[in-house]
């Protein structure tokens, strides 16, 4: 179920945090639509275990071919 519509004070905090300067009509229109935004974000929170992986897994960039061969050369020269 969508969350309740946000109060003026609470919504004002969000707008200030975003660094926006809305006129009264924009402010009220967006405050009225906020329930739909919360309806979207509520749907994202599905039950997950603590071990559930994030969607995107960070991979460290692989060394470039040039650096790999340079590293290999260094290793060989040390031998």
């Amino acid at each position, binding site marked *: 179920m969508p969350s309740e519509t946000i109060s003026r004070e609470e919504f004002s905090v*969000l*707008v200030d945090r*975003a*660094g*926006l*300067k*809305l006129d009264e009509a*924009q402010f009220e*229109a*967006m405050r*009225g*639509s*906020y329930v*739909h*935004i919360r*309806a*979207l*974000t509520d*749907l*994202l*929170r*599905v039950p*997950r275990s603590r071990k*559930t*992986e*994030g*969607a*995107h897994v960070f991979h460290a960039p692989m060394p470039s071919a040039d650096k790999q061969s340079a590293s290999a050369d260094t290793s060989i020269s040390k031998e």
Partner: protein
Amino acid sequence: MSEIWKLGLAETARLIETREISPVEVVDHYLDRANALNPAVNCYVRIEDDSARASAKVAEAEIMAGRYKGAMHGIPYALKDIIDVAGLPTTNGSRLTLNDIATEDSAVVERLSAAGSILLGKAETQEFAIGGPDFSLPHGPARNPWDLDRFTGGSSSGSGSAVAAATVPLAIGTDTGGSVRTPSAYCGLVGMKPTYGRISRRGITQQAYSLETAGPMTWTVKDNAIALEALAGYDRLDPASADIAPQAWSMAVDMGVKAMKIGLVRNFHEQEPDGFSDEIVSAFELAAKVLKDAGAEIVEVELSPLRHYFAAQRVIMYGEAAAFHEDDFRSNLHLYGPYAIERFLPGFLLTAADYVQASRRRGELIRELKEAMCEVDLLLVVGAVGAAPLIKGIEPGSLLNGTLSANAPFNLTGSPAMIVPTGLNPSGLPLAVQIVGRHFDEFSVYQAAQVIETAVGCRNMYPEITAGKC
């Protein structure tokens, strides 16, 4: 030849190759139509009369000298005005960038130019590919050629209108949540959103970088496949570009669907009884029957509710778009139109955790779809929420009212997805269905699309304005 516009891309290409028609004749014909119809349909923000005619003469000379480049040689096209052409403004449909001149060609334009295609004009776009039909902006919205009071859909609104009015046989749109497919559905076109990474995004104004791709919009399936062959390909300058060779997609149109297994995703619309019109559901059922009659095995596939896919797509889109527009929203908000403000603002109200939760949900839903598609070759999904609505019914404030999209899920998953017309409703407005493939399997999508197009047989029905009766 008096009605070149009825030939479409593939047949025009054949006649150019056999020298039965000249690119000069083709371009002159389409320029005449574009200039005559644009005051009514408002699909172009600029028409390139001089450069198009000059390019046509070059193409003609090349072909006469035996240097024919292939099916796109001498074919005119329109380009959504968020895509760069060196020396021309990329207005993005916004006061903010009204006079921004591009310094380089986009990858899309580079590829089409290399294929010998000819830019006819830049097509109207909803502001920054997200706003609505905004009359407060300098250019105003494109009109739907099937009914000038109707919405084209967006955000590739001018691209849809330009092809439906037959002012050009091909337009390039972009699709972040349905922006190729919705105008294709509303304007009665074939519209392909290829797999994410198939077409380079270089030189296209960003909206939501992890969701968007360019795509061709045409009158027929074969026209579309020919265009994608020219557009697709690896670009090392686009970090999302996929190093996978394009295929001969135009060969798919002769292959049929025998031995294919196609999954019907009914739960998307059945769980939203107020979200989709009866006639768009009938179009879906018609397409399912056509595919079955053509020899495909039809099975039911149930995915998570549409709202779950939609929510993750929207939160990611809003978040990425807000990051892109952050500086301008803080300092130049007054330059945006009301529809764009309304559609960008949600991104500023989200938290970082919201975005990450959407990304986690995205991963889960991609896995779900991938598992489902291990069992089937294609999915069939409703194409739009209904036929094209009246423009006057789309007021600012109506865009965030929870209206769903059955197109958005496949931007979330990066899957190829295509709109195919299924005929007209009793009011003479186009209806359509959506075909979804496995990643990088546009070939199967084109196979099924051609079967539907052939069976429905609606490609000889044109809007009255196109036929010159308006």
